[in-house]
């Protein structure tokens, strides 16, 4: 079991790294959002693994909250994506640079 | 032979048994549906193959086997191929945790009549059935056919909307039983049909019936495959084996829903009168269960024979503005009652810590089902 939890942590690390990489590799907003979800899941995995190895349940509760936040984030994020697509007719992250000072 | 291996063996055996049962049931359903509809519409229906056309399903099977597989031009091959599998896997995964009877002893060994019994049973079903959408969406999208796509999106939206009230309708029952495990829920209804949940949870029961019908895209909620509007909906482009698989998924879902409803509201394998639970020492649980489940299935067919189809906006309106509020209200009332009767918040009797390993069968069940 020790090995499993420990390797679970390693897996979460790998997933997180992949997610970060994705944010930089992909230019499609939606894909970027998905990469963010991926990172969140990596974190969740870490939580669960720790919860298991520490024998406490707080990790699971935290995962619960992460899920909630992720749901909210996805909803709003996708709504924004739709709005963007409606107005700018593109989903390329780099196209949205109106904030350029 | 280590206990784990035994577990595994039993699991596999169960999987195989239930799988075969489902196959037969599925084929019988197709037959029964056609016959009954015909009967309701003063037709004869299939009656050539074998006595009363009983062999019709077999004939269909064979036909479908030997038909050519068509993957339409411009379709997204991978997804097109994957879709039926996904649909089926989710269907089987769901049914994997549905019990068919109380624990029985085989070779002096306690065996529960259910592939796997996680203590999150109901939730698991909910989760898996929420995956069911993908099969349809994928099928609809991959075919690169507008009817299919519309059908897919429709059904996705529909399942989405009605899953909510479906799940909510369970909560009342769960509250009463105080457990997610289906066996517990059934046992909680022990003692005569008046103790079954469909009495004290009548609201939830009605909500469940409606939502379940919608969930499995049956009339009057069969918009995703509304022939008059979208040819055949998401499986317009499917033919031969894959078509069969999709059909099968549909029916398995239907069976799941029926079985689940039986367990949740109709007292599962319990007899209407405790005296009838067993005859001459033989437990009749399975029979009762089958009887109830089949009658529910009949009810579905009956509906199809009776009701017209909803309009899409009506469907959505109804789902969100009627079913959900009602279900929530029911939960509130039930919770209040439970708390009041319990006097105070029920103390958590420490659940016996279960070994982690025992949960793997759940995960086996799915692939196993898909393998078939």
């Amino acid at each position, binding site marked *: 079991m020790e090995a499993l939890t420990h390797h679970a942590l390693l897996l979460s690390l790998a997933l997180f790294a992949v997610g*970060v990489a994705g*944010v*930089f590799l992909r230019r499609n907003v939606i894909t970027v959002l998905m990469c963010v979800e991926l990172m969140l899941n990596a974190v969740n995995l870490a939580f669960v693994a720790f919860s298991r190895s520490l024998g406490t349940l707080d990790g699971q509760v935290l995962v619960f909250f992460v899920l909630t936040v992720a749901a909210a984030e996805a909803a709003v994020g996708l709504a924004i994506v739709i709005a963007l697509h409606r107005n700018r007719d593109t989903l390329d*992250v*780099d196209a*949205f*640079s*109106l*904030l*350029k*000072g | 032979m280590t206990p784990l291996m035994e577990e595994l063996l039993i699991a596999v055996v169960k999987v195989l048994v239930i799988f075969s049962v489902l196959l037969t049931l599925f084929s019988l359903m197709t037959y029964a549906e056609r016959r009954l509809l015909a009967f309701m519409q003063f037709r004869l229906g299939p009656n050539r193959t074998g006595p009363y056309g009983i062999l019709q399903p077999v004939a269909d099977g064979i036909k479908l086997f030997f038909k050519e597989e068509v993957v339409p031009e411009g379709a997204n091959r991978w997804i097109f191929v994957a879709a039926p599998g996904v649909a089926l896997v989710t269907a089987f995964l769901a049914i994997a945790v549905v019990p068919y009877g109380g624990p029985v002893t085989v070779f002096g060994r306690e065996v529960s009549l259910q592939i796997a019994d996680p203590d999150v049973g109901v939730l698991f079903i909910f989760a898996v059935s929420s995956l069911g959408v993908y099969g349809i969406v994928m099928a609809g999208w991959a075919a690169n056919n507008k009817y299919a796509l519309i059908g897919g999106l429709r059904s996705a939206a529909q399942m989405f909307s009605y899953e909510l009230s479906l799940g909510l309708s369970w909560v009342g029952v769960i509250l009463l039983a105080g457990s997610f495990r289906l066996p517990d829920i059934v046992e909680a209804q022990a003692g005569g049909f008046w103790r079954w949940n469909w009495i004290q949870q009548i609201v939830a029961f009605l909500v469940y019936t409606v939502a379940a019908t919608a969930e499995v895209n049956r009339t009057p909620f069969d918009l995703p495959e509304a022939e008059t509007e979208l040819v055949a909906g998401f499986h317009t482009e499917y033919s031969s084996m894959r078509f069969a698989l999709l059909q099968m998924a549909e029916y398995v879902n239907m069976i799941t829903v029926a079985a689940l409803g039986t367990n949740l509201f109709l007292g599962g394998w319990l007899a209407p009168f405790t005296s009838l639970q067993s005859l001459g020492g033989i437990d009749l649980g399975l029979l009762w269960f089958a009887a109830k489940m089949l009658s529910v299935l009949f009810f579905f067919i009956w509906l199809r024979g009776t009701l017209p189809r909803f309009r899409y906006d009506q469907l959505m309106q109804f789902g969100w503005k009627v079913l959900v509020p009602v279900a929530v209200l029911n939960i509130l009332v039930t919770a209040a009652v439970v708390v009041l009767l319990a006097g105070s918040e029920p103390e958590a009797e420490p659940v016996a810590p279960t070994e982690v390993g025992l949960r793997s069968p759940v995960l086996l069940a799915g692939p196993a089902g898909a393998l078939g």
Partner: protein
Amino acid sequence: MPEAILEDPILNALPFMVLLLPLLGFVVLALFGDAIRREGRSFGACVLACVTVIVSFGLAAWSVVRLWRLLPGHDGLRFAQPTLGRGLADGLSWIDVGGLRIPFSLLLDPLSAVMILVVTGVGAIIHVYSLGYMAHDEDRVRYFSYMNLFTFFMLLLVLGGNLPLVFVGWEGVGLCSYLLIGFWYRKKSATDAGMKAFVVNRVGDAGLILGMVLAFHAFGSLDLVDIASNAGSLAPEALGQVGVVTLVCLLLFLGACGKSAQIPLHVWLPDAMEGPTPVSALIHAATMVTAGVYMVARLAPLYSRSATALAVVAIVGVVTALMAATIALVQTDVKKVLAYSTISQLGYMFLACGVGAFGVAVFHLFTHAFFKALLFLGSGSVIHALGGEQDMRRMGGLRTRIPWTFWTFVVGTAAIAGIPPLAGFFSKDEILEGTLLAGERGLFAIGLLTALLTSFYMARLLFLTFFGRFRGDHETEHHIHESPWSMLAPLAVLAVGAAVTGFVEIPAIVAPAFRFPHVEALHVAWLPYAATLVAVAGIAAAGYLYLLYTDLPGRIAASLRPLERLLQARYGFDEAYGWLVRHVVVGGSQSLLWKGADVALIDGAVNGAGTLTLAVARMVRTAQTGFVRGYVLVILGGAVAVLGYLLWRP
């Protein structure tokens, strides 16, 4: 203080209830005033206001009695918080910074006991009176809400256990005074008067604040009890020696001057008569204006350590007394006469404080509250009868027309003039005696002279108003009518009070509050006779001039034109101040503060900040590429850095 007292739950709660009831009334009226008015329920609301004050008077009386029974001859109790709040250590802390800790603590000792009785008692009476007086004002709900608020603040002022709390009450009553003077805000003179009062008081309050700060700096505490009990250990400062104690006392006294209308800050009180008469009676005669006296008396132990401060207090007091009395001679407006009389009487009280007879000062405060309130209400009744007429020259002969008012007024006049055995006689007598005992013959002489003047102008007021024949027009004469019972009953009650309060041995009662033993004044045998003689003389003279030979005053005035003009000009204080403000303040502000400080410094700084920000922003904003993943990169870098720090932290 013995724990036994604080353990008494009722006694613990009472002061707070006394304090909060009027506030409750105010809140109700303030929140629902308009609704009530629209409902046409104004009268009920006003009754509610009265009830709150009356009840709180009852509670005050109860608490005082209880206090006495519990601990005879004690020197006061601090009330941390009502029992319901017992959970907290000692009172909710209002301010708690560094060494400064200011709880919401109330102090109920003989002094504040007397004060709350006066405030709630007289207050209640005047509230009732207002019922009749304001009956025809459609805005009377607002009026009563202000009155309740005032009562609350006044109680806070006298009950406050530490200077800041007292200060809150102090400012609060100032505010209410402003609101009530300008109650008829459509009358410009009224609003002006309100503002004048407010501004003049600010001058005093500046002194008060400085005094408080200095006091905290010097004594390390603002708790009244602490200050009082620590004062004994302070080194006494001789006459002409200005140490910290003197400084504190003088600064605080400046505040007292403002509130109690002492020279040079007395100018606001006469104008304050623009307000409704009951207001003048409650705020500008009985309670608020005596706040200064109360504070000085409250800090008696402190003042008695500084001869200089006492001297200043005494001199200011006596000068004010004399000057106000002289001005009162030539006033023709009923309320103006009373106003100056009030100033003069307050001067008397400060005189008493100045010669160390604090108890006597409070005594006079006590009696004065009654007869001056009586006089004001009486004049109010007169004005009411004459439909708003305030000029004595158009009055006269009302004796028979409004007998109740007349007789009560007579009592009040006799009381203030010092005719035994009425209240004024005793208190004034003791003040004069105090000056004698202090060996201040000069002060004594002036005091006596002032007494003469007092009885003279009061008698003049009485005669001009009630005797002779009516000098107004027929219209008003036709409408003359006695006031309703709701106004007469208070007059009667106050008349009784003015008659008998002299027998209450206030000095002996409040003595413990001053931390030094009450010296039983060895009575100067001849003084009472002299005082009475003086009073009678004044009245006689007034009668001679204004009843028998009514043309005489005019000729005297003509013969003493310059003096008369000086008095009419009220010694030219207003003009002087006006000139000061116009030329010095305004001019200085324009040339120096506005052109110099405001434009050059402040605006310069602000604009400079603006331009600076712009310049910086122009540089910084290049970092804002608007390129989302650039930001993400930065975030990632931050995460890496933080994690790295956590890992390989030294």
